[in-house]
């Protein structure tokens, strides 16, 4: 059995049964990662030999269990890749930025810590646009990640490293973060599953902040079941994050069994998401995918999310405004890069000037401007009001439908360098993922076909706030009757 061909759930089952060793599993992924990273650059940092030793310990735990001992955590011996914006004690956490190049956090993010407590092993840290600001991973200070389907193309971003690691079989599962589409869009471009949970469903403690009111920790996976498996362990209230939700985390995988049956499920198709500008292949494949949902018994109908067009401007005020404050701590005083100066001002200017890349600087300036005296009401204040309207759009829609279906992106993966000099074109990448982020509702990207060039196309499904259960059930049903998620690029 080739461990790389197993899904996460299958691997976990095999480890439990003793038909697979964690050492073999981890070694296979680590070798694969080492072998492909020069070409794909999914990882900024790959675990050393000690992860193999940890895998052997995991194997010990499982064999002790089979001899009648206590069951170890459900992820014992499972390797996980982590986007390099989540703190893991012992690992550098760079955020794809020069300013944190040598930063080693003294603590571990709650989401990661929960996985580790369940026995997971950290396989490495994946590449990201600097501070998660970007849609192509080209904004990483340490070089872009390449799309495993076509190395000339971007993997999407900002969780491009995590998405590519799944597509290229360099990791069985990976954590990503999504502020405006940073899980869903790269998942679509790389042909993998990408789940952005509801805002507050997973603790943000230890996630290096970009847009605090939007940031979500989520999963990039091969299958919906795999994503559900990780979510069950990772989600839930954290006293260290006051914005995390107190509601109990459902046992998501329980609903993912039996026959795929969507009778009684109402699926809304927002007309605003299918406007001009959608690549014809994408339009066709997404409509076909919605047809598949219909064939499973779901009722589909057109709906309207009338404030969709404002999502982009609202997002590009709110997120940079929050970022401008979140990134103020990188001043060279306590950690990270430091450029000495004769005065305090020189220390600040030198450090921040050298440490941040152009996109980060652009967003700090945008956000600073939007919050400035005299402009606050017109920009930030107004954006917050419109954000409320966008949220209301979703609340209204979810009174008559259970799930909203749309494309993830207007087109498939673009060529590297194609949009780097055109920030606005890059921002348009997030057009269809931003509204759910602003509303705080969960969204998932599912592989639903390939365009004429063979590039993956994603189907976006969104559910109501904290409605992950239904969202996962519908997604799982889709995967039960389709094969797109089983396809992988040839290495």
């Amino acid at each position, binding site marked *: 059995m080739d461990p790389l061909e197993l899904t996460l759930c299958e691997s976990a089952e095999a480890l439990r049964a003793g038909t697979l060793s964690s050492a073999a599993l981890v070694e296979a992924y680590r070798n694969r990662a080492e072998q492909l990273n020069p070409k794909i650059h999914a990882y900024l940092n790959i675990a050393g030999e000690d992860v193999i030793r940890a895998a052997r310990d995991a194997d010990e735990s499982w064999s002790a269990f089979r001899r009648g001992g206590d069951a170890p955590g459900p992820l014992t011996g499972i390797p996980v890749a982590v986007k390099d914006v*989540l*703190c893991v004690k012992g690992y550098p*956490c760079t*955020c794809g930025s020069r300013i*944190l190049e040598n*930063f080693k*956090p*003294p*603590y571990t*993010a709650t989401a990661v810590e929960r996985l580790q407590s369940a026995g997971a092993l950290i396989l490495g840290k994946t590449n990201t646009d600097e501070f998660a600001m970007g849609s192509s991973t080209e904004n990483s200070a340490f070089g872009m990640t390449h799309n495993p389907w076509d190395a000339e193309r971007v993997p999407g971003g900002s969780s491009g490293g995590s998405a590519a690691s799944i597509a290229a079989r360099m990791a069985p599962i990976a954590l990503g973060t999504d502020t405006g589409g940073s899980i869903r869009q790269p998942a679509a471009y790389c042909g993998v599953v990408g789940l952005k949970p509801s805002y507050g469903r997973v603790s*943000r*403690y*230890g*996630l*290096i*902040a970009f*847009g*605090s*009111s939007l940031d979500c920790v989520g999963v990039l996976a091969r299958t919906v079941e795999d994503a559900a498996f990780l979510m069950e362990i990772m989600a839930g209230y954290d*006293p*260290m*994050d*006051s*914005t995390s939700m107190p509601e109990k985390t459902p046992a998501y995988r329980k609903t993912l069994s039996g026959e795929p049956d969507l009778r009684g499920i109402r699926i809304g198709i927002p007309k605003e998401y299918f406007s001009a500008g959608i690549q014809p292949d994408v339009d066709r494949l997404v409509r076909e995918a919605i047809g598949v949902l219909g064939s499973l018994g779901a009722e589909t109908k057109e709906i309207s999310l009338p404030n969709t067009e404002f999502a982009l401007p609202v997002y590009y005020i709110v997120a940079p*405004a*929050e970022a*401008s*404050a979140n*990134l*103020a*701590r*990188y*001043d060279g*005083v*306590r*950690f990270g890069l430091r450029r000495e100066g004769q005065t*305090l001002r020189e220390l*600040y200017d030198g450090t921040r000037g050298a440490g941040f890349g152009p996109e980060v600087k652009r967003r700090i300036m945008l956000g*600073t401007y939007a*919050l*400035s*005296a005299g402009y*606050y009401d017109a920009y*930030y204040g107004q954006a917050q009001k419109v954000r409320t309207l966008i949220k209301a759009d979703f609340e209204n829609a979810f009174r008559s439908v259970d799930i909203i279906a749309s494309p993830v992106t207007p087109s498939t993966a673009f060529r590297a360098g194609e949009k780097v000099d055109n920030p606005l074109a890059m921002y348009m990448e997030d057009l269809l993922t931003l509204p759910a982020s602003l509303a705080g509702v969960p969204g998932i990207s599912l592989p639903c076909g390939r365009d004429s060039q063979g590039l993956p196309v994603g189907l976006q499904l969104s559910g109501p706030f904290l409605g992950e259960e239904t969202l996962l059930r519908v997604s799982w049903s889709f995967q039960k009757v389709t094969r797109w998620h089983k396809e992988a690029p040839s290495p």
Partner: protein
Amino acid sequence: MEWEPVVGLEVHAELRTRSKMFCGCAVVDSTVAEPNTSTCPVCLGMPGSLPVINERAVDLALLVALALGCRVEPVSVFARKNYFYPDLPKGYQISQYELPLAVEGSLRIEAGGETRPIRVRRVHLEEDTGKLSHEEKPARSLVDLNRAGVPLLEIVSEPDMHSVEEVKAYATALRRLLCYLDVNSGDMEKGVIRFEANISLRPKGTSELGTRVEVKNLNSFRALTRSMEYELDRQAAVLEKGGSIRQETLGWDENAGRTYSQRSKEEAHDYRYFPEPDLPPLEASAERIARIRAALPELPEAVRERLVSKLGLNRYDAEVILAEKETVDYFDEVIRTSGAPARAAATWLGGDLFGLLKMRSIPLMGEGGKPALPAREFGLLVKMIADGKINGPTGKMLLAEMLDTGKSADALVAERGLQQIGDADTLRAAVRAVIAENPGQVDQYRNGKTTVIQWLLGQVMKTTGGRANPQTVRRLLEEELSDPAKG
């Protein structure tokens, strides 16, 4: 022209909580603790860390708000105040801006012989910054973040004060209130209360406001009043010459005794406040407010009423006791444990005991709330005096010895045989002996120089080893001297 000062005060008071405002780090005395020892990823502003509201700090803040008669907002919102400085680890301070915790209260002050309320505009919660220290050789600045994140309450008054005396009275009354509520140690030297004053002048009799300056970082009552006196003189001089006041932020140079410009209006910081996305709105439920209200202790006004009306203290003694909450507590303890009469206890406490403590430079309450003299021992001494068992001068002497030796009054009296002699027969013999031995002074008295009786009294005290009851001796002297048969 005659100018009227118009002053509003912003008071920053640290709240006495065990842990910091947004993390679990202990609040330590940053004037003595090893630098940067009470810190964690949250208060260091480490990437990825998040704040969590200290509910105890909210309770203490609500206590102050209610004591000031404020209206508590059902929902208040934390906001980020953005500026760069090395003592501010996140590059923003979590404070409250548009929606503060409480608004529209007042504090009564006494100044110029009258009592009047100073309106409080708002009360809000925030976090303290760290501390910088600058060194000359090598030239460098060091940061201590022990204080970063300590809960801070900002209390903002309306510009209702019109003299240095009123400002001092307000600051003093507010400090006293915070101590009574036990939310702040009141220890100004530790910097736990700090002031910022908004100062302007206007022609007396007019009502519009003049251009104001803001004087920052005033860490003592002295700095507050001196800087204000300086500013009022400076502004009056400018205005008298027909000049105008520049709106600006000023610092106070304690050594030079003058204010200096820090920032002009044009250079003023744009703090770019916006709601803190890491914290949900702070809800103060009716139940919570009721619970806090029920926990309000006896406040200075009520204590004054009790001391004067119920216990019969004179106004002066009452004020001396009122000034510090710990004195009130000590006084109550004295009465409760010893049964000493309140008026005598108040006089002996405010006069002799305080005098002796001052001479010895020791506080009434030492480390860990241990008094310099146990309340019961002090009370028993007062009671002995009041009961006529020892006389006043003996009492004074004993009080000093009790302080220095830690012995009880009882023990000292027994040790030395200091019981007062009040028995008239015994004293009459002593009085007669003194009269017999001092015919010259007796003549003077009889010739109308009655003040000489004081000298004769002294002689009797001397012969009785200071133990005679002076009142009885005086009465006996008068009797004996006015009796011609004895002449």
